[in-house]
């Protein structure tokens, strides 16, 4: 499969501030790519350059083989976009909005099917300015799908949505992927990226600090898995004495770091031998969110201490 999106050395400056500082990545056709990063990291700037809404300061960008800024007219027929803050004409109904987009693209979409897909049928005939924030966002998604796009660019599509609506959007994204479409997603919800994305990139101050499949990123940058027991100092004491593993005790919880999964057997055997009773345990594993917080935090500390970024 070829690349749907290719970015080489992309730079974007606003006056003296470098919002995007030489990033590289590519998204294969049919994959979901999640772009993560703290506020102001450069996600929207990058997304809008890919959509052809902003010119770039430097670097190479190809979307479906086209230059988004100079070949926008051809590109726009093949992509769908939800901007970070989606607005529409105040007095227009969702059904009419879909018909309008259909006419602009020379198509005849079925508004009902699209509105069902984003769970908005009950507001099909309500004025846009009476919709809630989440409902507006859903209309944005429906409009992004009108032209049957090969790539969907979704800038924070689930921000401000209730849990059910968020799951509905996830289903739409999974369906888009199943249909072979490419999805470029930005989000602040790490579990969303972990669930949906084939690849994630974390951008920080205009630079990509880590890039790859979510599981690989967690494996590379996460802490080892931990066994966590509900229990007091005697469990910690036994484990410190009987095993070489690193043990920590905090608020009646004992954490044991497992170097390899088989270390779990040594832990239970030691407790058994010592005859210490234990009631509940679970396995603690870093999520993408913990990795994100740690990586971004480390970068910020580094910047504060004046170190060069790794």
């Amino acid at each position, binding site marked *: 499969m070829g690349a749907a999106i290719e970015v080489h050395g992309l730079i974007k400056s606003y006056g003296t501030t470098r919002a995007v500082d030489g990033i590289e990545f590519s998204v294969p056709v049919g994959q979901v790519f999640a772009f993560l990063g703290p506020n102001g990291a450069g996600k929207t700037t990058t997304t809008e350059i890919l959509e052809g809404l902003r010119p770039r300061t430097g670097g190479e960008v190809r979307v479906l083989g086209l230059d988004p800024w100079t070949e926008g007219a051809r590109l726009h027929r093949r992509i769908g976009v939800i901007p970070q803050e989606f*607005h529409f004409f105040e007095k227009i109904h969702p059904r009419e909005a879909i018909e309008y987009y259909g006419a602009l693209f020379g198509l005849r979409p079925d508004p009902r099917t699209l509105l069902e897909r984003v769970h908005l049928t009950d507001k099909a005939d309500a004025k846009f300015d009476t919709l809630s924030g989440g409902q507006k966002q859903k209309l944005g998604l429906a409009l992004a799908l009108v032209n049957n796009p090969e790539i969907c660019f979704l800038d924070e599509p689930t921000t401000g949505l209730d849990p059910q609506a968020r799951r509905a959007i996830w289903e739409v994204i999974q369906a888009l992927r199943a249909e072979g479409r490419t999805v470029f997603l930005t989000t602040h919800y790490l579990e969303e990226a972990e669930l949906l994305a084939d690849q994630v990139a974390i951008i920080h101050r205009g630079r990509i600090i880590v890039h790859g499949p979510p599981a690989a990123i967690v494996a590379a940058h996460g802490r080892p898995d931990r066994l966590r027991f509900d229990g007091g100092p005697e469990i910690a004491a036994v484990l410190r004495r009987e095993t070489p593993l690193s043990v920590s005790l905090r608020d009646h919880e004992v954490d044991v770091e497992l170097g390899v999964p088989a270390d779990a057997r040594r832990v239970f055997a030691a407790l058994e031998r010592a005859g210490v009773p234990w009631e509940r345990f679970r396995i603690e594993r870093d999520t993408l969110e913990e990795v994100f917080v740690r990586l971004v935090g480390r970068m910020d500390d580094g910047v504060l201490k004046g170190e060069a970024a790794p």
Partner: protein
Amino acid sequence: MNARRIGADLLLTARGYVRSGIGLFFSLVFPVILIALFGLIFSTGSSPPTLYVANADHNSAASEALLAALNGTGAVHVQFVEGQTAAGFSAYLGRQQDSIGLLIPSGFGDAYANGTPFNLSLYVNPGDAAAAGAAEGALEAAVNELNLAHARAVPTVGAAVYQIGGVSYSYIDYLVPGLIGFSILTSPMFAMVDVTSSYRKEGLFRQLSLTPLSRAEWLTAKILWYTLLTLVSAALMIGMGYLFFGARLQITASILPFLVLGPFLFVSLGMLAGSVAKTPESAAIIGNIITFPMMFLSGTFFPVSSFSPPLQSFAHLLPLYYIIDGLEAVMLYGNTGRAVLDLAVVAVIAVVIFLAAIVAFRWRET
């Protein structure tokens, strides 16, 4: 240019416009209110004032002759008041509104017959100078006639007064083309300045840039919509002028080019003003600076010929002047040559501004 896209955008524009209400009020209801208001104010002023007459010189031949002469001037409408003394009559007039009165004291007939100098009493209200002037003029003319008759003289010099164009135009006849011009200017200008700047602020234009709709198609849809509104509002104003205020206008197809080119010009100008401004607030200011002088100085409410010469020269710089002048040439004077000239000026300005608007107007930031 794609007809389906223009049609879709026209439909969307119409829906938004009708549903928001305020725009519809300004483009359709407001002009009708203006016509009604100005029509009512100025149509009452054109009927002759009522002159109350107390005749204390009962049925003398001279008083009959005087009243006949007064009636003959047509400048006042004579209304008799019975059985009044001089003091009572003055008090009576004070109780009437806007009243002027003439008292013919007793002994007038005898004095006239004997040739003794005699004074009639005219009561006027200084607050209504126009009515007082009309009554004075009418009385002077009537008295003059009686004096001449007494001297058995024949008037040697007379004057006949004719109205230019063979028809006498009343204020309402000028008002209809003026107010059509007013709504051709204001309804697209105010709306387009607002729409252009606020759509940009809300990112709606960037969103439209992601569709195949082009800027020229978008602008064309707006022009079509405001042309439609102009046609309806012009029909309403002409109908009102005809039905309620007796306007005498020539309604021909030659009005149409003005009703199409006018909105074309001002939709483009509104978009140009909204595009060059950085914020909706500054757009509104720029829009007002352009609109307000034009609103009053192009012959909308007052004919440009009544202005001082420098102001007249200024009016000739305003595009709306040529639209109103052209509409008057068609609707009042049937002066085709002048209308064609006006139309040519309007067409050139409109095309230039349309092109400037397309150039200044950007979907996306650069």
